[in-house]
Structure formats: C-alpha cells, structure tokens
C-alpha cells in the first residue's frame, strides 16, 4: 500500500473525535480524584490521627504536609501536560517536575538527617502505613493510567515518573493526616521512601505500559 492510498483510506474511515479537555481541567480532575479518594480511605480506615489539631499547630508539620501536597499538585499538572505529543519536554513541565522532585529530595534528606542525629534505630512495624499508603494509591493509579492512555505521551518515562510522583505525593500527604507516628525513622521508611520508590517505578511503568496496545501511538 503506498502513502497516497493510505491517506485515502484514513480519510474514508475518518470519524469526528472530541478533542481532549484543556490541560488545566484534566489536571484539576486528577487532583480532585486523588484528594477525595485519599480522604475516603482515611475515613474508611480509622479516621484522621487523633492529635491532628495539635499537629497542625506545629509549623514544621504544617510546612512538610503542605509541601507534599504542593508536590502532588505540580506533578499532576506535569503529568497531564506530558500526555500530549510535543517535540521535547518543555520548560514548564521541567520546572514543575523539578520543583516537585526538589521538595521530595529536601524532605527525604531532612528526615534522614534527623534520623542520623538521634542515631540509627530499626523502624517500628509499619504494616498499617504500607496498607494505607497502597490503598490510597489504588483508584488514583487507575485514573492516571486511564488519563495517560487516553492521551498520547511520547515521553513515556517522564510521563510515568510524573504520574506516580503525583499520586504517591497525595498518598503521603494523606498518611501524614492519618498516621500519628512522627518518629523520623518511621516517616523515612514507611512514608517517604515509598514515594521515591513509586516515582522511580513510574519510569519503568510509563515505558512499559505506554508501549503496549493500551497506548494510542
């Protein structure tokens, strides 16, 4: 089949399509899904930590939680923008992903510093945190995969990284509202490292998933 023939065939089978909604609206949708679902999981388990009001009066706790939430927002917008083909990953996406990653690098290094200051100790069991963290990621993960495959990301690794960083950030924010344990070693092992693992796994997931027949191109 030559190219002219292919063009005629594609033209003949053309059906109207609904263009993707604006990136802002889709990003807002993704954030809302994450926030509402994380809150639902918190209440479905045993509700927010009992000392939440007291914790919110701590500037450190507040700054850390807000930063994690902000990282989630930035990564969500970057994810959505990366779902549309472009010749390169443009400056806005780089800045957003860079800022979200920097927030997490700072949180991880700061918490690691605190752990080193008080001396290395094996962290307590964090089964409930692992379950909570994973549960908070389930529906957002399905939604973000659906959004990515509905679009056509050509930068698969970046898109996967942004997507997982985004939903893991929202889950980690939820975990700070859910879990009353503020011990640095607990936070590092059971709350923050899973975000880094999820984000790195996102690169592999993006590269694999967006190469399968689920992908548009």
């Amino acid at each position, binding site marked *: 089949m*030559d190219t002219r023939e292919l063009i005629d065939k594609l033209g003949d089978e053309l059906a109207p399509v609904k*263009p*993707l909604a604006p990136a802002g609206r889709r990003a807002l949708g993704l954030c809302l899904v994450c926030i509402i679902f994380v809150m639902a999981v918190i209440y479905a388990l045993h509700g927010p930590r009992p000392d939440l009001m007291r914790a919110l009066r701590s500037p450190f706790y507040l700054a850390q939680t807000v930063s994690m939430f902000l990282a989630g927002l930035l990564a969500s917008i970057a994810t959505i923008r990366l779902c549309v083909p472009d010749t390169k990953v443009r400056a806005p996406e780089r800045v957003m992903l860079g800022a979200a990653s920097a927030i997490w690098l700072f949180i991880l290094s700061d918490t690691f510093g605190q752990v080193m200051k008080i001396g290395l100790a094996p962290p307590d069991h964090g089964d409930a945190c692992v379950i909570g963290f994973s549960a908070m990621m389930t529906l957002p993960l399905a939604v973000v995969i659906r959004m990515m495959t509905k679009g056509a990301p050509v930068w698969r690794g970046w898109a996967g990284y942004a997507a997982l960083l985004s939903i893991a950030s929202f889950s980690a924010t939820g975990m700070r509202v859910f879990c009353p344990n503020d011990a640095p070693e607990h936070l590092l092992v059971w709350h923050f490292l899973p975000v880094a693992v999820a984000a790195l796994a996102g690169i592999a997931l993006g590269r694999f998933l967006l190469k399968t027949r689920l992908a548009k191109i």
Partner: protein
Amino acid sequence: MASADIHTKSAPEDPWSTLMRAAQAGDAVAYKKLLGEIAPALTSFLRTRFFFRDHIEDVVQEILLAIHAARHTYRPEQPFRNWMYGIARHKMVDYLRKQGRQRDNEINDAELETFLADDANNPEEALSGKDIRQALTHLPDKQRQVLLLTKVEGYSMAEAGKKLGMSETATKVAAHRAYKKMREWLISYGYS
C-alpha cells in the same frame, strides 16, 4: 525544511492547525488535504535524520497512522508542527529500536552458510512449513500476529484488527509489510 524546534508560527495562523480542527470535526476532505501536505514534510524530516533511506515511506506511513490514532490529542492552542513532529520523532525512534532488535535476531553469515550446506535446506525444494515458520520468527510481533490471525486462523482484516486493538487500515498495512519482509527473507535464502 521545517525543523522540529524552530517553529514560530502561532496556531491560529497555521493552515495545518485549521485543517486539523476541521478533521477533528469529521471533515474528510480537510483531513486528506492535511495528510497529503504533511506527508512530504515528514519525508523531508526523516531524510535528514534517518539512516535507512529505503524505509522512509514505511516510517512516514507509521507516523500517519499514529497521527490518525492520536488526532484527538491535538489542541488548537498548541503549535500543530510541535505536535506532529513530536509524534514523528517518537515513531522514528520506535522504528530504529525495532530495526535494532531485528538485526539482533538476524542469522549471521556463518549460520547462513551452515544452513545452506544442509541438503534439507536446499532452495530448490518447495517452500516448506518449516521455512515459513522460520520466516515468521523474523517478523515483528504485531505483523506476525496479523498473519497468523488472517492466514492461519481465518479472521478477516477487520476482525484481526479488532483483536489486536488496531484499525482495519493499520492491520492491512501491517499485513502488507509482513508479506514484504517474508518475501525478502525467503528470497535471501534462495527461494525465487
């Protein structure tokens, strides 16, 4: 030639953007005009970047199919050329990766000599099922599946496409390429 990174035209002034918006609304005439205009631009784009000159038409067709599948992702506020060349670059890289994988699977000269020295592989003999199976193993997954579904299991192109998540046209293109590759492979082993 337009370069992927130096497009300065804004979307509203770009005639391709206007044609694409019409195509999204279902205007087949505008769509054929658009594809007819971008195909030579894509050919030029590939000529300056692509080593396999003989394969340029194949890659252009792959890009056109990808543009067709992803046409809903184009948004008028984005320059059309960035969107199109983003897809083109992606498909070109994919094609090069596939070529690399196929080269890895190719039989080297020593293996070929051993193969031809074996009487059982005498090219004078009729095309055997074994050779066909061998030729099939040299096809990319999708092309092999298209052939197996249509020629072995008896599905129509449309049905096979549905099973593989491809449009009927894409399935036909894949089948056409599979025949071409099998023919080339069999000829390289002495079949006429």
